[in-house]
């Protein structure tokens, strides 16, 4: 990284915000359209149903398993390899009679010599509750953050950060919908973590914008925001990079069970990094941030400066 003079920004982010907005708008429209038309592929955590993961000594015969399930009159089954061709994942939608005993009878039917690696059964009522709780969790996280940011900064910053978060969440969900990757409880957890992460990034930028507003005599917001973005740029990229490294490790080495969890975080971190540079700051600019808006917190800043 070349050493540059402080006041001359290297990249003029602000003037490029139109392109960014068009880019974001396209991503959002595609995401929303996909979620609207195609929907998310919800896992059994939310739909209810039964999931069985079996391990075989040799390559498993999927056709054989399918025909056995069919002859036993199970409806809505999905049989596929999971990770390798000796491991099989069987999913069943809720049957006319849902019961935890279903998995036992299927396992018995498929033979004794298989290794039962995982069984999950979620009753229809539980699935519904998990969906509600998940939605609520997302909502409460956003409200909690909104309050904190509004309290620490100013309402425009709070709106800007929430806009960035909603942007990130919708696009991450959009990718899950487009690629029809299964959306289960762990993915929901990942999305909540994305909220935390993306916000972390946005806050760092906002902090710098506020600091710059207070430190200079300029009152024009554009150069100030641009300067803050450039000052925090190497940090933003560094942190995203280290986070991406570990997520890639998790994605490739963590095993099938947390594959989509790591995937959601990967998408979220990339989008979150982009949004903290372009979306959040464009938003506060559009909302008309000015030096005067910083003044209430100037007192606070002085108190902090006065500390030994």
């Amino acid at each position, binding site marked *: 990284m070349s050493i540059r003079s402080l006041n001359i920004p290297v990249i003029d982010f602000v003037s490029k915000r139109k392109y960014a907005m068009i880019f974001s708008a396209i991503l959002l429209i595609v995401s929303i359209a996909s979620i609207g038309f195609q929907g998310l592929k919800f896992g059994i955590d939310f739909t209810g149903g039964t999931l069985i993961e079996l391990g075989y000594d040799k390559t498993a015969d999927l056709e054989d398993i399918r025909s056995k399930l069919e002859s036993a009159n199970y409806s809505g089954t999905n049989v596929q390899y999971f990770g390798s061709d000796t491991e099989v994942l069987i999913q069943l939608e*809720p049957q006319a*009679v849902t019961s935890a005993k279903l998995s036992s009878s299927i396992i018995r039917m498929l033979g004794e010599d298989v290794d039962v690696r995982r069984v999950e059964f979620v*009753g229809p009522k539980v699935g519904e509750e998990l969906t509600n709780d998940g939605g609520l969790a997302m909502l409460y996280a956003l409200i909690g953050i909104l309050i904190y940011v509004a309290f620490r900064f100013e309402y425009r910053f709070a709106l800007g950060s929430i806009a960035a978060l909603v942007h990130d969440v919708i696009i991450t969900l959009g990718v899950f919908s487009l690629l029809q990757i299964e959306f289960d409880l762990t993915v929901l957890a990942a999305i909540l973590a994305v909220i935390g992460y993306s916000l972390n990034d946005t806050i*760092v930028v906002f902090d710098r914008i506020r600091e710059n507003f207070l430190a200079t005599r300029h009152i024009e917001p554009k150069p100030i925001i641009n300067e803050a973005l450039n000052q925090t740029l190497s940090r933003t990229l560094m942190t995203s990079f*280290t986070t991406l*490294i570990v*997520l890639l490790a998790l994605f490739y080495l963590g095993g099938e*069970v947390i594959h989509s969890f790591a995937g959601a975080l990967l998408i979220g971190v990339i989008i979150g990094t982009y949004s903290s540079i372009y979306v959040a700051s464009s938003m506060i600019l559009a909302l008309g941030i000015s030096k005067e808006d910083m003044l209430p917190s100037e007192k606070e800043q002085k108190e902090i400066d006065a500390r030994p």
Partner: protein
Amino acid sequence: MNHYAAWKNTLIVFFLFISTLYALPNLYGSDLAIQITGAGDYIVDDNDLETINNELLENNIAFKSLGFQDKNILIRFSDSQSQLSSKALLKEKLSRNYVIALNLAPSVPQWLEGLGGKAMSLGLDLRGGVHFLLEVDMDAVISMSMDRYYNELRTTLRKDKLYKKIRKEDNLLIVSFKSEELKNQAKKIIKKDLPDLAIAEDTEQELELGLEISSTAKTTAKSSALKQNITTLRNRVNELGVAEPIIQQQGTERIVVQLPGVQDTARAKEILGAVATVEFRLVDEKNDVQTAVNSGKTPAGSKLYKFKDGRPLLLKTNVITAGENIVDASSSMDENNQPSVSIVLDGSGGRSMLDTTKEFIGYRMAVVFIENQVETLIVDGVATKKRTKTQDIINAATIQGTFSNRFQITGLDSAREATNLALLLRAGSLSAPVEIIEERTIGPSLGADNIQKGLISVLVGFALVLVFMGWRYRVFGLVANLALTLNLITIVSILSMIQATLTLPGIAGIVLTVGMAVDANVLIFERVKEELRATKNIQKAISAGYEKALLTIADANITTLIASLVLFSFGTGAIKGFAVTLSIGIITSMFTAIIVSRAVINLIYGGKKVEELSI
């Protein structure tokens, strides 16, 4: 400038020492073990230890150690072969006063254990096991208490012949009277003697009174049903022989059962969810079964039952004795090599059996197996509960001679059925039907896989971050790496100290923390770099870098903390594990990345004349 007081450094070193000490137990693996616990009130003692020792030595089973732990006997083995064979051996040799369970015992050295050092407990997804969520059928509980109040109401009002008729209607007991006067009298008595019944419908003109169970009585009935079910489930789990099971209430009508390391989940499901009992009734020998079947009318005092194969039989309505009077039951093979269950009755059951068998020698007595099941059906997309009650005659044999509290039941289909029935009768019946509404089973092979993969991804991610930080920030990068390592140790030690359960998402939380924990250091270092460009004073640059970055770090971390707290309060099992490690990681990373790294930087550069920073 850039100098920490001696006490501050000492405190940091002390803190890190404690962290390392309590993270240490996790380095020692665990032994395959068998845990032997006294069943019921029985507590294992030195004699038991002696017996077990002798048995193992006699049968040439090698073990690592044998001794007491808490109130259990723990035998450690070096291979699973000897673990399994000694379980089989002890199960055969020891009486049913003992619960024998396979277990994994952490092999933490004594001195560390003495200091309270414990390894993190592994979640079911890492060690293998079953998680069940059971829902108690509360409608059944209420309808059962309706029946009870119906009987009580009749007995109470019968004394003075107050009522004309009592009938059940939905959730109401409707009593009709002959006169206004009798009705008022009854109201007074109900208020005094049956405070659990509240008057729901009372019209002046009509001679009828509608009564319902008061809401407090309903709540009491529900909570006591839940408690009784928990007790019964605990007994059943003990019978299954599971080490460290978790059976706890969740909400007002649900029970969580977690069984680490259970292999036969099909059996666990059968046993946990079964609401089964037996009744003993005399066969009605006077009336003809076929006539009853053909006419559809059963003679007074009798009821039509069927064998499992569908053959009908008339049985007396009076029950001689039933499951609740059984104090012990065990399965075995009888003289004809047929599966059977030996029954021991309590005092009143034994007396009643003696009286009956004395009076009715030569008659037949039937054993009726009663099972209640509740399932969820999906009808037109709506989930509805379906309750089924099966009552099958499992055998009807002629009473050869008098007997009282000890006898055998035969006529069971298989040895497995006999063992299950014996177990259920021993452990007591559930007070209300339960339904498994969620199951998560992780087989032992996947558990082992998950640990291995989780560990590898933590280590690889961690190593990559270390390399990258060292390359990017030189000496400062190495300091950040030290802080990161200490952060990892601190997270592990806190998780061990609070005995939080480590799950796979928990490991993911740690991995994510590793990635994000360097953020604080990146923020600081980038700030120091900036300051260096503005000033020639290196010491001042370090100090300003740390101070200016501090607020930003705090803001950024608090918001992430808010998100993870929300995750914690809304999440179930797996998500909670992720939230716990993430929250702990955020807090510890603030300590290591800010305070510890500063202390080290101070030691390296503080108070000296520095020409250039390696950053």
